[in-house]
């Protein structure tokens, strides 16, 4: 099957400092790829650069649109970039408060992307918002409540609903469970695993936690100091890590 995303020799520097350096990978439809590394490993810079939120210093990112056409993301206009972000992509931020609109109701948060795509039937918007709240295990009776009245875990589940409601072809997730209690994390990871399978989502997820990769991703990239140190099937990396840094990460997962 043809790839959805092709990343080749991608670098992003901040002056002299390396954000990420010479990263290449393919992402296929329906595939969830985890990028694992500690803070400062360049994984978040990589995610932002791949998602065209940061301009690359070198290298290319190509994305195959719904109509089969390949787009070179570095050459996109702001208008095209926003159209892609609106119509074909989703982005889940680590802090749900960055990804949600806090001054409007939960239902409006879920319905916003649908309205941005031109849906103009209120009852239909309500129906879809209700069903998505239930899908992310939020009581549909809370559809008119403010997200600020939700717990952190609920806010993150709301952000997931808000992002996935338009059935994006490609989702970027930046540590979606970091900063939450372990039991809350587990519930969200379970939920994500279910939705990823059900919707056949392609996603790039950044995490510091190999356990998250083990649960969600068939393939994993390990980063250190802005570079990829190991890449392969997640199971293989966990069973037989090659790079000393990966070995260190794996041993810390196995002891927890």
């Amino acid at each position, binding site marked *: 099957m043809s790839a959805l995303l092709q990343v080749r020799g991608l670098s992003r520097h901040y002056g002299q400092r390396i954000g990420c350096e010479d990263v290449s990978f393919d992402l296929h439809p329906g595939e969830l790829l985890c990028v694992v590394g500690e803070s400062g490993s360049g994984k978040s810079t990589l995610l932002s650069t791949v998602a065209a939120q940061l301009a690359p210093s070198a290298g290319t990112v190509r994305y195959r649109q719904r109509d089969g056409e390949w787009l070179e993301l570095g050459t996109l206009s*702001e*208008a095209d970039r*926003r*159209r892609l972000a*609106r119509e074909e992509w989703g982005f889940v931020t680590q802090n749900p408060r960055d990804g949600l*609109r806090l*001054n*409007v*109701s939960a*239902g*409006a948060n879920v*319905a*916003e*992307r649908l*309205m*941005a*795509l031109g849906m*103009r*039937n*209120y*009852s239909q*918007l*309500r129906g879809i918002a209700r069903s998505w709240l239930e899908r992310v295990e939020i009581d549909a009776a809370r*559809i*008119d409540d403010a997200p600020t009245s939700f717990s952190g875990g609920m806010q993150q589940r709301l952000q997931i609903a808000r992002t996935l409601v338009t059935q994006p072809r490609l989702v970027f997730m930046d540590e979606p469970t970091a900063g939450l209690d372990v039991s809350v994390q587990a519930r969200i990871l379970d939920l994500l695993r279910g939705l990823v399978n059900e919707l056949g989502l392609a996603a790039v997820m950044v995490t510091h936690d190999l356990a998250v990769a083990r649960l969600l991703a068939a393939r994993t990239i390990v980063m250190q100091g802005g570079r990829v140190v190991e890449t392969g099937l997640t199971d293989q990396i966990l069973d037989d890590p090659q790079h000393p840094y990966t070995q260190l990460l794996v041993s810390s997962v196995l002891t927890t």
Partner: protein
Amino acid sequence: MTPSYNFAFLDEDTKRMLRRALLKAVAIPGYQVPFGSREMPLPYGWGTGGIQVTAALLGRDDILKVIDQGADDTTNAVNIRRFFARVAGVETTEHTVDASLIQTRHRIPETPLREDQILVFQVPEPEPLRTLEPREAETRTLHALADYGLMHVKLYEDIAQYGHIATSYDYPVLVDDRFLTSPSPIPKFDNPKLDRSPALMLFGAGREKRLYAIPPYTKVESLAFDDHPFEIQRWEHRCELCGSAESYLDEVIVDDRGSRMFVCSDTDFCGDRRAEAQA
């Protein structure tokens, strides 16, 4: 006319700057054009944007009408009318049909406007997305890309909260199928009068330093949902003075016992109808 002022208070350079901005505004219907707003001898909130537009347009032969909430005799309207009578010496009127230039706050006259008339609106907040998106750079980008889903978020919230679109003033419109625009705080009752109006409509926001325009015969659509279409206010009453069933009504208290009655907010329209009825 007080001799120490240039005609219509503003100097000619400032008027030329304003006219250039107005021409650009007319060329791009609904687009907010920045302009170098001047200090006016009235505080912001008193219509300094509208006054500057009026000052840039006035010629010696113009006949000026000024209304506030539909009435010619409120403090705001009287002050602005007196101001221009003093600094431009132009003729003023309370009759819509006699005016060549009408400056307004909060209403569009009931009497249909003509091609040879201009309506100037005082605008406190020109950006319809402002309450939802406080960042100026972001609203500018949303306009540039005609990315207006956000406006429907507000209408959605209205229905979720009140069961219907409760926004009744400053009801957002799409101008010429392109720019999302604030009609200024007129009642939504007046929105249909904006659509394909024969008269030129100009909008001035002094504090925010923005001008915009709806040129004659431009399509103006009030936003809505398919299953919650745009509707104007309706009353079970007629005007108790002139009997009109088509005009925007104000509920006024008529004595110290709190008795109320419904009367036209457009005092000129109401007065004309009563005069006709007696004739």
